[in-house]
């Protein structure tokens, strides 16, 4: 089985690698690039923990092979904050509203919520719930997650 050379942009940085075609994007991010912020949960597209942005849209990184991302742009949870040691607006809101308990689903939730806000800066509660419907939180802390998104997107007068 022949390895494939890929070249993609991850969190604004160009990265190249020579990988086995069967390497999933999430394994590539975690094992090759050591970006362990993206969590790997169910590995078959149910839980949403591995959600990353691919050319700006949220996708499940367990449900695609890294070779399929060749030439594209990936943003992981490590790419959300403006600077190391800082928090993005949505990350800050998760802290403020206690939007996480065990934290396992959090990277996927943050990416999914960021994608929502990028498209719709002031989502309704129903739109927030629809957006996060593909992400499971086994602590069932959904209410605080919704509160966090509302907090991050409320109009400031």
């Amino acid at each position, binding site marked *: 089985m022949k390895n494939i050379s890929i070249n993609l942009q991850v969190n604004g940085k160009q990265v190249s690698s020579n990988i086995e075609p069967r390497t999933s994007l999430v394994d590539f991010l975690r094992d090759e690039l050591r970006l362990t912020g993206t969590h790997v949960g169910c590995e078959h597209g149910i839980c949403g923990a591995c959600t990353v942005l691919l050319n700006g849209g949220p996708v499940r990184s367990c449900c695609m092979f890294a070779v399929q991302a060749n030439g594209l742009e990936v943003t992981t949870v490590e790419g959300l904050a403006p600077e190391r040691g800082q928090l993005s607006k949505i990350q800050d809101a998760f802290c403020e509203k206690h939007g996480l308990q065990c934290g396992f689903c959090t990277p996927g939730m943050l990416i999914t919520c960021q994608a929502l806000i990028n498209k719709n800066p002031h989502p309704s509660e129903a739109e927030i719930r629809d957006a996060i*419907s*593909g992400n499971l939180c086994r602590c069932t802390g959904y209410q605080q997650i919704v509160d966090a998104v509302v907090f991050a997107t409320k109009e400031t007068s």
Partner: protein
Amino acid sequence: MKAAPFDYHLAENLSHTKNLLKEYGDDVKLIAGGQSLVPMMAMRLAKPSHLIDIARIDELQLISSLEESIRIGAGVKQCVLENHPLTSQIPLLSAVVPWIGHHQTRNRGTIGGSLAHADPSAELPLIAVILQAKIHCENIDTQRINSAKDFFLGPMWTTLEAQECLTHIDWPIWHGTGIGYAFEETSIRQGDFAMASAATQLQVDASGKLMRIHCGVGGMGGTPYSFEDMTSPLIGQTLSKELIHGFSEQAIQQTEPATDLHANAAYRRNLAKTLLRRTIEQSLAMATSSFQHHLR
């Protein structure tokens, strides 16, 4: 939960795809969005030795307007269908998109992929069957057109041959006033596989009499059901509550749903009957009100 090893081939265009398919014969799979295939490979339910990536083929991404239909390339992503200006002429198709998986899967999953995968509970196969879409498939030598109803043979089973590629789908346009449509689905959680689903598209004349009705249910057997053969007694009638009830009851009797952990067959039938009745009622209300808007 890791896929078995395979060789990866990036197809440059459709003829390259067909050549690769011929070269690798039976031990090959096409991948576009991979939202069903990659999980199956992770669980090793699928172990192809060769994967041909068709996601970057421009000719499979086209949406164009023909005289009587809208032609949609097999590689068009589900998220594109929701808001594309041309798919608004197939409103039931646009309406059903939010029910397919989740935002994350619709950003990768394609229309051709859903049809070729042929999950009996999936939304797009049901809509293709009831709207009588034409599915185009090609191998290196020939092209053929299948009506959606004939395309689906059983669960995850279609007329697609190992060396064929589904290329595009033609969706008939309904013209005129008095058209209504609706889709309903029940699942364990939002975006999950449907326990049962139903869809209707119908047209009435200005006096409210039914001119045509296409309706069916999904998740109730190996393939989507279309009840077209049973609708002739309804044509020319003003659909009363009793007529709709009676029709739904009778239609669901021919389905053969499975019993599983979540619902037994009797429950599924009852559910599908209710969903079918609702979609007919909603379609009728929409169709009738379109005349009121027209008059105003």
